[in-house]
């Protein structure tokens, strides 16, 4: 198939970017979306132009590196699918495809489609852990976790940290990301001792990084390639509310 690509090109953080248009004939429907971009880049290199920079690594949907808006949707048109797992059979001959980086103040563009997501790391540093040093652990089966809680905790823990939830949200809110981690620990006995400080600190850091507020439009859930449920946001709100009322932390 033949595609017309409109891709956001930007040299670095300081410069202004713009859309550039590229024609790509001979796209196979069996290609992944990123392989299609590889083909474009090979073509650009052969013309002595700079290839399009985009983050990618595992190309099997788990590392969370790839991050692009495709025709206005985070990771493109396929549900529960990262850009690297999106296949060209979802497009048809003659399509126009608009490709942009994540758009959020907290994710500044570094180049082309590459953004800086270190804000997520800083939120995790604020409290997304259980304070247990190596070597201290009791026997694994001395902690009993009801299967349903373990499964729910697992579902929340499958977040890949890609940032699609932020990119999809009109407020650029990071609530789904934060709630996934808060939920994982809130559902497990291991997370209990620090549950109040954790949620307070992570939310404070989230606000500090410049992410917007949540207005419950649920676009984040629709865009999430890992299928993280907005129920986690409800749980985050409960945890946060309880913690603000009862935490002894000043």
């Amino acid at each position, binding site marked *: 198939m033949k595609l017309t690509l409109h891709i956001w090109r930007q040299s670095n953080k300081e410069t202004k970017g713009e859309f550039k248009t590229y024609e790509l004939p001979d796209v196979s429907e069996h290609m992944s979306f990123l392989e299609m971009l590889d083909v474009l880049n090979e073509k650009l290199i052969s013309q002595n132009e700079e290839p399009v920079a985009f983050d990618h690594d595992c190309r099997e949907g788990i590392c969370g590196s790839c991050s692009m808006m495709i025709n206005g949707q985070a990771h493109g048109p396929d549900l529960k699918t990262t850009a690297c797992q999106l*296949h060209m059979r979802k497009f048809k001959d003659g399509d126009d495809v608009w490709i942009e980086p994540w758009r959020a103040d907290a994710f500044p563009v570094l180049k082309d489609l590459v953004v800086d997501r270190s804000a997520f790391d800083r939120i995790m540093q604020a409290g997304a852990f259980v304070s247990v040093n190596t070597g201290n652990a009791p026997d694994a089966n001395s902690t009993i976790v009801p299967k349903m809680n373990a499964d729910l905790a697992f579902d929340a823990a499958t977040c890949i940290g890609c940032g699609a939830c932020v990119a999809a949200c009109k407020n650029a809110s990071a609530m789904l990301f934060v709630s996934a981690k808060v939920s994982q620990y809130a559902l497990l006995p291991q997370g209990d001792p620090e549950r109040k400080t954790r949620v307070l600190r992570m939310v404070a850091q989230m606000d500090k990084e410049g992410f917007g507020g949540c207005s419950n439009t649920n676009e984040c859930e629709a865009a999430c390639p890992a299928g993280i449920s907005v129920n986690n946001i409800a749980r985050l709100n409960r945890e946060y509310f309880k913690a603000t009322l009862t935490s002894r932390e000043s």
Partner: protein
Amino acid sequence: MSLLQSNVPEGPIAEKWTRHKNELKLVAPNNKRKYEILVIGTGLAGASAAASLGELGYNVKTFCYQDSARRAHSIAAQGGINAAKNYPNDGDSVWRLFYDTVKGGDYRSREANVYRLAEVSANIIDQCVAQGVPFAREYGGLLANRTFGGAQVSRTFYARGQTGQQLLLGAYSALMRQVNKGKVQNFARREMLDLVNIDGNARGVIVRNMVSGKLERYVGDAVLLCTGGYGNAYYLSTNAMGCNVTAAWRCYKRGAYYANPCYTQIHPTCIPVSGDYQSKLTLMSESLRNDGRVWVPKDVNDKRSPEQIPEADRDYYLERRYPAFGNMVPRDVASRAAKERCDEGYGVNESGRAVYLDFKRAIAEQGQKAIEAKYGNLFHMYRKITNENPYEVPMKIYPAVHYTMGGLWVDYNLQSTIPGLYVLGEANFSDHGANRLGASALMQGLADGYFVAPYTVGHHLASNKLEKVDTNNPAFEQVESEVQGRIDKFLSIKGSRSVDSFHRELGLVMWDNCGMARNAAGLHEAIEKIQGIRWEFWQNVRVTGSGHQLNMELEKAGRVADFLEFGELLARDALAREESCGGHFREEHQTPENEARRDDENFAHVAAWEYQGDDATPIRHQEELNFENVKLTQRSYK
């Protein structure tokens, strides 16, 4: 010879590690903060080591090429992690895990290291559960287990098909906690481009800031290399696109020996290759073989679609050839068996390079829901990629490069031949011999990082008086200028071929001549071809852009240039090892039943290569492997 001291402690194998820990020197708590440790890579080995060392009080700096420490490729490991817990009461023990691992490695690993690995395996599960890793559980709330290849007990802990993700996020959370405490500084989007030795000790690294393009110098009292394997030498592999050998290769060129590079693991169950544009291969977890049955049609000319082929016309060749282990034979055995069937013309798929992995019986017996609960994400991924529904038609699979058992040579303390340079996880050679068993990579990465390096690195610091040095030392100046020279060279060639085109060309040579089956003529040919590709690369590569910016072509150029040197060493090692063992199969050395034939008399050793200069042949050193506890036999899974 003298450098290859394994430093395995004396005494019975079950007591070695305990004794050794008692004898290792300690750094007093208030002195730990005076030391600086550099950790390269933030996968399971790197993140767990950095977090544990930070907890102890050392100052740690970590570096990763990804934009976040959480994205290291350990995250993609699917099936599980082994541990000798014996929770299912099926007869497992530290001894059995040790024995299975030595046997699975085709008797080419160091006994004492493997025993220690089995010994600390149980602690790993405890540690991960304490961190809040959500392993699969039974209805009673206790941990669940499953079986993996090469074992007759269920000792594999798992988190659906995403165990690596959950373990890595656990280690990452421990790492983030130390960052928060100020004990670890994490430098993302940094690629290590060289090692700095001062007075014979590893004392620093040169890294490139991948956003600004600037070269940066970091000084330390020890350097821990946790940079994974070299599977991407084959271009197509299950590794992430960025996985590379550069850090390890640079250390090799600075004096670390490279051990057993010919030991590569070709994983039997991956989605087959389709199309020239293909950029990577996707693994379907070994755990699928618990419920999936591997088969091809009995008749070469049977072109019916799989659901139309009745049971009587199917050849479940693994169950036929290996009745005791059936579909759960180790990876090297399963891969070669698939290749054998396809070579004989029984392969399915348009290419003829695929076999079926069939879940029909499992779905009939257990119901689709149960299968979905166990493998849901894998089935989902398979469907995404192939557009076929594996609940209805069997998966088509074929072997692909997955893991590399070879790596930098290390002693029992995980120290390389350069004092102060430690190598952990897949980047070292130590625990898996010539073939790794499933669910053992996660175990080794975390064992090295959580439970071995924190002891042995401290011993190094306590027993050597290291001079205070800083980044103004002339050694830093020298190494940095060499790195800069190389970058300038890449950009100045301005040839006509892209970096990727060279990488693909190398990959084809590696796969054809150094893949699942190797022979002397093919390996000679490979060496010659690789030299040719390398020569052309340095004349004709085109690297667009400049060095002072985010430049992914430049990053790739450095990695491919190193693969083009490394590939030759791999072929050389395969040529020198005149036997078949594990993942290294030399066609000249096989039994009448086409099984691998080892030569214990001449090759029960580790081959460790010493760099001699770019134009000189490296020297092959040997570390003899002494098996005092396990009797060497022909590995049988029949």
